[in-house]
């Protein structure tokens, strides 16, 4: 490979990481929420609220950590609203989640009115000592901002929590069979509330990445459908954190690759290339839906079901 090709490869890898990061956050958050048996379709709305809150704090010179925290807290706050409706008042989760998405789009637009057209400095890159000097991949993979590293670390952390800790076991038990979990004395609603709040915080972080680093500005609807992609990724990953991480990187990679490939003379229309990630998700969906045992093994059995403690 020539130097120019190596540079291009490095640029593609770095771009893949950037494109994947907001998806990693949002998908991992939703994964935990769904593992507890709650389907929250409001990811897009939570991301946008997180984005506008993080941007507002950064714009007021609140500093890096405070901006990031604001994004997570705002996502969590709006997830709490969902929890009140879907858990507290036992409203239909699908309807509440959809409403949350629409509400988030509108509310973030309203809150961000005064922030449009005022760019900020992007979060600084933190090159990892040593690793970032590896040729080609060093610059591509180990020279990013703090949110990127946080998103990658979140996947193994969530895996350990879900499958190696007692709290994770309880969370999964609540998602698999809330009546049984209730019968042996676990507080189903409290566990679900915490899972929903965690999902909100993660979506908020995904949004914060968009407005603080990816494109350091605030514009209405800047998530541009990423919340829905994250939702699909959870199914694609069959509710496993490592696969969600992989799926987000695959998705990000294909998105970036098709932008580059348009001028390589591949001869495939750009719309087809742009469709690829969605096609892959559908294929996985079909593949796991065909095999009943796979669904039973993977999907939380109580996903989306309303819990009535009185029974």
């Amino acid at each position, binding site marked *: 490979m020539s130097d120019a090709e190596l540079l291009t490869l490095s640029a593609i890898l770095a771009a893949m990481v950037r494109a994947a990061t907001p998806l990693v956050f949002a998908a991992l958050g939703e994964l935990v929420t769904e593992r507890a048996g709650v389907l929250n379709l409001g990811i897009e709305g939570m991301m946008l609220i997180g984005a506008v809150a993080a941007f507002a704090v950064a714009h007021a010179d609140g500093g890096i950590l405070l901006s990031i925290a604001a994004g997570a807290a705002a996502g969590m706050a709006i997830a709490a609203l969902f929890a009140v409706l879907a858990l507290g008042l036992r409203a239909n989760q699908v309807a509440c989640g959809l409403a949350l998405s629409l509400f988030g789009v509108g509310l973030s637009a309203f809150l961000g*009115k005064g922030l449009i057209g005022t760019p900020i400095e992007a979060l600084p890159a933190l090159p990892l000592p040593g690793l970032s000097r590896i040729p080609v991949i060093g610059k591509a993979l180990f020279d990013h901002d703090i949110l990127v590293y946080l998103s990658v670390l979140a996947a193994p952390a969530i895996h350990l929590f879900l499958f190696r800790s007692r709290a994770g076991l309880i969370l999964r038990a609540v998602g698999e069979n809330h009546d049984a979990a209730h019968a042996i004395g676990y507080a189903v609603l409290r566990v679900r509330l915490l899972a929903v709040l965690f999902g909100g915080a993660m979506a908020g972080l995904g949004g914060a990445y968009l407005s603080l680093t990816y494109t350091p*500005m605030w514009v209405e609807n800047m998530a541009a459908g990423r919340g829905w992609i994250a939702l699909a990724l959870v199914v694609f990953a069959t509710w496993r954190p490592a696969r969600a991480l992989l799926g987000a990187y695959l998705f990000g990679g294909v*998105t970036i690759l098709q932008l580059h490939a348009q*001028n390589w003379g591949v001869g495939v229309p750009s*719309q087809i290339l742009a469709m690829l990630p969605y096609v892959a998700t559908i294929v996985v969906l079909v593949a796991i839906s065909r095999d009943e045992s796979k669904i039973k093994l993977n999907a939380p059995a109580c996903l989306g079901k309303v819990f009535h403690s009185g029974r």
Partner: protein
Amino acid sequence: MKILRRTGLALALALTAGLWGAGGARADEPLKVGFVYVGPIGDHGYSYQHNQGRLAVEKHFGDKVKTTYVENVPEGADAERVIRQLATSGHQLIFTTSFGFMNPTVKVAKQFPKVKFEHATGYRRAPNLAIYTARFYEGRYAAGVAAARMSKTHRLGYIASFPIPEVVRGVNAFLLGARSVDPKAEVRVVWVNSWFDPGKEREAAEALMAQGVDVLAQHTDSAAPVQAAEEKGVWAIGQSSDMSRFGPKSHLTAIVNDWSGYYISRVQAAMDGTWTSTDTWKGFDAGMVHLAPFNPAMPAAVKADVLKVVAAITEKKLHPFTGPIKDQSGKERVAAGQTLSDAELLKMNWFVEGVVGSVPH
């Protein structure tokens, strides 16, 4: 009962419409003008520019007009409700500013024959419905001249939204402008299949810059490409409005949509009673398109050359689509000395030789 209520409603509507028709004739009452926008007025792009036009109308006519605007109107059934609402509340002239408002506008215009309507970027007209749009490609040609003069690599990048004639025409005009000063110039196109996705627009910009592009142009709505150019130290050309605050060092100029002059003249016509249903497609000559202030770092000679091109187009001495023009396969599409007709421009679906990338069909 239901029928009765309906008739009553229709009667009330007719009465109101009649009353407002009479009201319009009185000279001392301000003329009520309505505007419907598809985006937020704070988008610093398309809807923002239409709103600047509305503000210019208010400034020009003072208390002789009263303007109303509705922003963020989705294209579809909701638009019809908004437009009808404006018509029933006494607005005598209503501008609907997005392509997707076409059918709702046609429908409401039929129901309110005394109200005057104007629809932007569409093609359906009626006796009380005029249409208007701007020749943005004139601005893109001039921007192409500026881009080629500033480029060192002879490679210009273009972030394109959807393969519709408006966008294809813009890419071609940009290339022809560039080639008029640099025969080696090429334009690399990346389609993002979206009007608005800051993240994807940024990545398209990065992809182009990785290919050695050193001037970026865009036909998408966010300032993300300008921001990406600023970070990497290459030039960028803004879209719809001046985007220099997103890239003070990189923003070369922008192709600005300016509706002020048109809106003022149409409001004047409505006041004078000379308003008719017209089909307007004007560019530099009517001031509907102009270039944003040039970057201070641009050499004076380049500025002067670009302004010369703008002047030539304004005075109709230069048509951006003058032959010989070949398409990507080398086939001659426009013979030497010929120019493309408006009809051909409106359905353009092929790239000019020198554009790298393809029009997906």
